[in-house]
C-alpha cells in the first residue's frame, strides 16, 4: 500500500502525527526554529493551538529554554530544530541537559530518506553526533514508527535517571500518511528503571545512621529531579543531622534552616566542606561525588567513614568513591521508606555525640567563610546577590550562567525551595542564563525570574533579548559586570602569576542601549548605595524586561576555594589572600 497519500479519511500525515503525539503528551510549549527539513511539521503547528511554539533566535537557546522549563516544572521539555546546522546548534543544549540529567525530547528534522548519506544540503548524522550526549536517540524510517517512537522518547526521557532523547525525522517521512494511534503504555524489555530500593539495604542504612557520631547528609541534583525534597526535610529534621547541598542540589533542603551548612565543594562553605571531610557516616542522596564536589578523591579517602548512597542510576554508585551501603532506587520512594522505618524505630540518635558534633560544626561556622568586605562606593557582586534575595524575598527563580557570578549566586541567594535555582552544573555552559530564564518565565508567568550573569556569558546568547520581547517575558537580568572573564581571571591570578591572558573584555557594548534597542528597559548601576533601590525599581515593573548592568569590583574573587586537585579541607579562605 502506498503511504504517500491518504488512503482513507483516517489517515493523517507524519507531520500531523508529530503534533498529535505532542498533544497526547500534554506538551505546553515547543521551543524551536523552522527550516527546510521541518517545514511540514511547522505547517501543522500553524494549524493547531494546543501548545504554543516559542520562536527563539538560535537553536542552542531553544534547547536551553526547553531544559529550563523541565527543571522548573519537572515535565519533559520539548525542542524542535531543522536538519544540519539547526541540529548541530542544538548539540550544546543537549549535552548541557545530559550532564544534569534533564528530561528533554528534541525533535530534529533530517534530509529525506533517499538523500541520507548523499552529503545532501543541510545533512548531518544527528544520531551519530548526539550519541555520546543523549540518554537515547532514534532515527525514524517509517511513518508508522512516529507515534510509538515519540511515546518511547517521552517515557525514556522522564523515567529512571532522566535525560535528553533525540528523535531525528527525515522530511519525506513527515509527508507520508498513516493511521494515528498513540500507544497507551510502553513496554521495553531492554529498559526497566528500578523504582523501589532494596528493603534490607534501607534497614542497614538506617542502622548506620542511628549509630553515627558525626553524621552528614549530602544531597544533589537527583533529590531535586526526584521531587524528594519534602521526604528529605522530614528525615533530616527527625534525625537532627547537618545537611549540605551540591550546586545542583540547592533548594533541596531549605537554605535558611539551621541544619543547613551551605553548599559544599570547590566553592562550598568552610563548615560544609569540613563536616563532609570529618563525618563518620555520610548519607549521599542523588549526588555523584564529582570532582568539583569532593576534590581529590585520595584526600577524601584519607578519613575513615561509612557511606550510604541512594541513587536511581546504578552506574553512579562506586564510580569515584567506594560506597559501603548502596541503595539503587527512586530517591523519593527510598526516603519515604526510611521515614516510615524511622517512625517505628525505638533506637534514637546518640544525643551526646550529635551535640558535640554540632558544637564542632558551630566552631567551623564561626570562620564565617562567606563574609566579604563591603564597600561604600564600589559595588561588590556578593552584595548585589544578597540584596536580590532580600528584594525578591527569596522567592524568585534564579538562573545563572557560568563563572564567578554563578558561584556568588549559589552562595548568597538562599534557596528554600527546589526547582528555583536553574544553572548548568555538569557541563558548565556559558550562555544558558538568558534562555534558562525564558523557560522559567514561561513555566511560571507570574513569578519573579532573575538571570544572574556576567558580561562574558550574557553575550553568548544575547540574541534572545529579541525572543524575550516577542513573548513579553518580564525577566530581570542581573549583570555583574566586572569587565573580566572573572573565573578565568581568578585562576590566572592564583595559578598563573597574574598573567591575565585573554580574560579582559574590551569593547563591551553599551548594555543599556542594547537592551533598549530590543525594546527593553536598561539600567546602569555604578554605586553600592544604588543597588537596593534599583532592584526594587526593576522588580516593581512587573510586566517589563529589565536589563540591569551592575558595574562591579574588578578584583573580587570567589571564596572559599578548594584548588583543583586539592582535598576538601584544603580551602583558601578570603582572609588568606
Amino acid at each position, binding site marked *: 500500500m502506498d503511504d504517500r497519500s491518504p488512503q482513507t479519511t483516517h489517515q493523517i500525515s507524519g507531520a500531523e502525527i508529530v503534533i498529535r503525539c505532542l498533544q497526547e503528551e500534554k506538551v505546553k510549549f515547543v521551543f524551536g526554529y523552522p527550516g527546510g527539513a521541518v517545514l511540514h511539521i511547522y505547517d501543522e503547528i500553524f494549524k493547531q493551538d494546543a501548545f504554543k511554539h516559542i520562536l527563539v533566535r538560535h537553536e542552542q537557546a531553544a534547547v536551553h529554554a526547553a531544559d529550563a522549563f523541565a527543571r522548573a516544572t519537572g515535565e519533559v521539555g520539548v525542542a524542535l530544530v531543522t536538519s544540519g546546522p539547526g541540529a548541530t546548534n542544538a548539540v550544546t543544549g543537549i549535552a548541557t541537559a545530559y550532564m544534569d540529567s534533564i528530561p528533554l525530547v528534541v525533535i530534529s528534522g533530517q534530509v529525506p530518506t533517499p538523500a541520507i548519506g548523499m552529503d545532501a544540503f543541510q545533512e548531518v548524522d544527528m*544520531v*551519530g553526533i548526539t*550519541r*555520546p550526549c543523549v*540518554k*537515547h536517540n532514534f*532515527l525514524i524510517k517509517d511513518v508508522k514508527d512516529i507515534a510509538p517512537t515519540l511515546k518511547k522518547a517521552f517515557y*525514556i526521557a522522564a523515567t529512571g535517571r532522566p535525560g535528553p532523547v533525540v528523535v531525528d525525522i527525515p522530511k519525506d517521512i513527515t509527508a507520508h500518511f498513516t493511521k494515528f494511534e498513540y500507544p497507551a503504555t510502553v513496554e*521495553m*524489555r*531492554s*529498559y526497566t528503571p528500578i523504582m523501589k530500593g532494596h528493603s534490607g539495604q534501607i534497614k542497614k542504612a538506617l542502622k548506620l545512621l542511628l549509630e553515627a557520631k558525626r553524621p552528614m547528609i549530602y544531597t544533589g541534583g537527583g533529590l531535586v529531579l526526584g521531587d524528594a525534597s519534602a521526604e528529605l526535610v522530614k528525615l533530616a529534621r527527625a534525625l537532627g543531622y547537618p545537611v549540605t547541598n551540591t550546586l545542583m542540589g540547592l533548594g533541596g533542603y531549605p537554605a535558611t534552616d539551621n541544619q543547613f551548612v551551605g553548599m559544599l565543594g570547590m566553592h562550598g562553605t568552610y563548615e560544609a566542606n569540613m563536616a563532609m571531610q570529618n563525618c563518620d557516616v555520610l548519607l549521599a542522596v542523588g549526588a555523584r561525588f564529582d570532582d568539583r564536589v569532593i576534590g581529590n578523591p585520595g584526600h577524601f579517602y584519607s578519613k575513615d567513614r561509612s557511606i550510604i548512597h541512594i541513587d536511581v*542510576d*546504578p*552506574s553512579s*554508585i*562506586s*564510580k569515584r568513591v567506594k560506597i559501603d551501603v548502596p541503595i539503587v532506587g527512586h530517591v523519593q520512594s527510598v526516603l519515604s521508606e526510611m521515614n516510615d522505618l524511622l517512625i517505628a524505630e525505638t533506637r534514637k540518635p546518640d544525643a551526646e555525640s550529635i551535640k558535640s558534633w554540632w558544637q564542632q560544626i558551630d566552631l567551623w561556622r564561626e570562620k564565617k567563610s562567606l563574609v566579604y568586605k563591603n564597600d561604600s562606593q564600589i559595588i561588590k557582586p556578593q552584595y548585589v546577590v544578597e540584596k536580590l534575595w532580600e528584594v525578591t524575598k527569596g522567592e524568585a527563580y534564579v538562573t545563572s550562567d557560568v563563572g564567578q557570578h554563578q558561584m556568588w549566586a549559589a552562595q548568597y541567594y538562599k534557596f528554600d525551595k527546589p526547582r528555583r535555582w536553574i544553572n548548568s552544573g555538569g557541563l558548565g555552559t556559558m550562555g544558558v542564563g538568558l534562555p534558562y530564564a525564558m523557560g522559567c518565565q514561561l513555566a511560571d508567568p507570574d513569578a519573579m525570574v532573575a538571570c544572574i550573569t556576567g558580561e562574558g556569558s550574557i553575550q553568548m546568547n544575547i540574541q534572545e533579548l529579541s525572543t524575550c520581547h516577542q513573548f513579553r517575558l518580564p525577566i530581570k537580568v542581573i549583570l555583574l559586570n566586572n569587565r573580566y572573564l572573572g573565573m578565568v581571571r581568578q585562576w590566572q591570578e592564583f595559578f598563573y602569576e597574574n598573567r591575565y591572558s585573554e580574560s579582559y573584555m574590551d569593547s563591551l557594548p553599551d548594555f543599556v542601549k542594547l537592551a533598549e534597542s530590543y525594546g527593553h528597559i536598561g539600567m546602569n548601576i555604578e554605586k553600592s548605595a544604588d543597588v537596593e533601590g534599583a532592584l526594587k525599581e526593576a522588580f516593581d515593573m512587573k510586566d517589563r524586561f529589565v536589563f540591569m548592568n551592575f558595574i562591579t569590583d574588578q578584583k573580587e574573587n570567589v571564596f572559599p576555594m578548594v584548588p583543583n586537585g586539592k582535598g576538601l579541607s584544603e580551602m583558601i579562605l578570603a582572609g588568606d589572600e
Partner: protein
Amino acid sequence: MKHIISLLMENEAGALSRVAGLFSARAYNIESLTVAPTEDATLSRMTIVTSGSDEVIEQIIKQLNKLVDVVKVLDLNDGRHIERELMLVKVKATGPFREEMKRISDIFRGRIIDVADGSYTIEVTGSCSKLDAFLEALDKGAILETVRTGASGIGRGDRILKI
C-alpha cells in the same frame, strides 16, 4: 585482568555503535568485539574482551546495562565458561615449509582449508591464548596473512544468558 563480557541487545541499527562509542568515550580497553544475531532475530549477541581493574570492570558492566538497547549483560569471568575464537592464517608452503606447516597445523588441530602452489590457508579455533601460541609456533617469516574473529564466549553447564 582480562574479562569476557557477553551481552544481548536489540538487533537495531546503531546498537553496535552505542557499545563501541561507550568504550571509546570512557576510555575503556577493548581487545575484541564480535556481534551477530541470535536464534531470535530481534536480538544480537555480543562478546567483548576487555581488561581493567575490578572497579573499571564494574563500571563497564553498569554502563553497558545503562544503554537503552542493551537487554542483558553477563561477565563470563564470574563463573566457568568456554571461550572460542576462529583464526585463518595464510602461510608460506614452499620447499621444507610445505611439510612443516602441515605438521604444526595438525598439532594445533588446525585444518588446511585452501591449498595453492606456494601457500596454505589454515583454520584454527580455540581460546585466544591457543591461537597466540599457534602463531608463536610458526616461523615469523612464513606468515603471509592472519585474520581473527575475536573471541565468542558461553557459560558452562546451566549458566545461560537468555531473556
